[in-house]
């Protein structure tokens, strides 16, 4: 009986020792992964440093939104009335409404097919979008691919 107890004690202590060593090894491995993550942070830091550091907030938005689109949003902000209006947006770009929505606040972006939308922003439309008939007429033009229309009916 005593021999069996001793055997169990030795077994458990050896298991504990093995578990302890395994944990130490795992934490070392984890720390190496963490160092690799730090290296990734460093690469992100370098990218952001080159892209944005030392620039004005307007310049940063220009980089983030794309210069052509940012210029158009600045143009739209100047041309739209002072009081909040609803506007629509059509473009061949993917999800252009995200930047327009925030940049043109307090104006409200909405579906241009809705009757309460007073203005339509057109930025680089597709062939179909540029030939489609809308209930809007030209209002202000930055160039042939970037213009604002106003609802007529």
């Amino acid at each position, binding site marked *: 009986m005593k021999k069996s107890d001793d055997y169990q004690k030795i077994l458990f202590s050896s298991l504990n020792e093995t*578990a302890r060593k*395994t*944990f130490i090894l*795992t*934490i070392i*491995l*984890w*720390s190496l*992964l*963490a*160092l690799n*993550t*730090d290296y*990734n*942070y*460093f690469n*992100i*830091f370098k990218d*952001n*440093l080159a*892209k*944005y*550091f030392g620039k004005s*907030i307007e310049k*940063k*938005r220009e980089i*983030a939104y794309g210069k052509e689109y940012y210029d158009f949003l600045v143009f739209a902000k100047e041309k739209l009335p002072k009081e909040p209006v609803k506007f629509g947006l059509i473009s061949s770009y993917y999800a252009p409404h*995200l*930047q327009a*929505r*925030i940049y043109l*606040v*307090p104006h*409200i972006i909405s579906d241009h097919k809705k009757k309460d939308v007073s203005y339509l922003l057109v930025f680089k439309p597709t062939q179909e979008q540029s030939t489609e008939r809308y209930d809007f007429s030209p209002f202000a033009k930055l160039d042939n691919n970037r213009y604002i229309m106003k609802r007529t009916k």
Partner: protein
Amino acid sequence: MILLIKLMFTLAVPILLGYCVIALISKTKLRISCLERFSLSWGAGIGLLGLGMFTMSLLGISLNLPTILIPSLIVIIILAFYLLANRIPIFDMAAILKFFISIVRIKNIKSRWQAIAEIILILLIALTIAHVFFDALVKPLLNFDDLWRQGCIAKIIFSTGKVFTEQSVELAGPHPYLNPLSQAWIYMGLGVWNDALGKIIFPLCFASLVFIFYGGVRRYTGRFHALLFTYLLTALPLIVYHAGTAYSDLMQTFYYSAGIIYLFHWMNSRNDPDLYFSAILLGIGNFVKQTGIPLWLIATVVLIIFLLIEDKRKLKQSGSFILISTIISSPWLLGPKSSLVSYLRLYSGKLLSLVTTSANTASTIQPSEPLAYPPPTIMDILIQLSKRMFTYADWQLLWFVLIAVIVVKWQKIIVSKLKYLLISIILFFAMMVYIFSSYGIYRFLLDGTLVHRAMMWQAPVALYLIAIALLYDDRF
């Protein structure tokens, strides 16, 4: 330069507000470090300021710099006078001195190698915090939710002085407002819409989480171990990534994790301020995301289980916890736009439709549209969750090590107060399974858009359990 000075003043208001509240709760000398005190002040301060702004908006008061600053300063002055009149220490000079001495003098070190390792860990943690601040502040809002919801609502509040406009209500849906209100406060302080600087609240929440985590581990273990696990926390890529965006998930992670850590402190020390800190942080958490309410409920259940097992006579403590956190979050919980009201409406509606449907004949039920995939079973959810936990780099070895620690240290966990941390983790995953069992939400588990963010809320608590359980001794 002027913008930076304005930013400092803007940040000073919530920090001072939080500092006075924390000092008032502590009454006697706080047994926490300077960094932890700053972190608590920031968390409590920005949360209370946001709730104040929300309450003012409910009362129809327009939000602008003077209407927010003047009442805030009055509250800060009244609290400061009360603290002075009652001789409650506002500044613990000894703690401040100790903090600066500890930076330059590394004591109680067993070997030179340990000293070098500690210095390296401090540098790595500091560099990550610096990186997070740089990453957040150097670029404007870029991510989907930042532009589409949180950042946009913040700009609406800044531009119109109102929380509830046609556009903001549509954008917010049932989501709480702390994130956009905090950003709006920064814009008001700066006097200009600067979406890069507006994001400073997120790195501050990250730094606060790191300091509270370090302080939390340090209470029970040596400095090297606390630094090592704090470093592992700062190396979890998803947390660092979110600290540079304007999503609400990092804030939710901070309030929930810090709240649970202080709850655990209270279970060990029965030092009442720890319970009140926990109640404040978890109460503010209700105002960050919709999920703040279930997370707060998890903490409340854990507290009640603790009191039932350890000390039934002190059940009223759970009452004070619930009361404080409810009062803190009452403008949101009980206000007209609250999630709680929405939940109640939703579930009473569901109950009503269930009763109506069962009362009608089967012929009245319309055939539904064909499903894109079969409704999930619990096994489906567990398999998908496991995939996300164990095969993505976001978590490194976190969940593997957690399971290994639970298995190996099971007996020690179960006899100690660590079991309450474990219960909170189990309840959290039960909540995840319940949430994802809904057909509409299950797709967010399949496409990964929500599940990783949800796991992030719990990740610091899981790492905290690992850190303490691995260094377990008989103190618990």
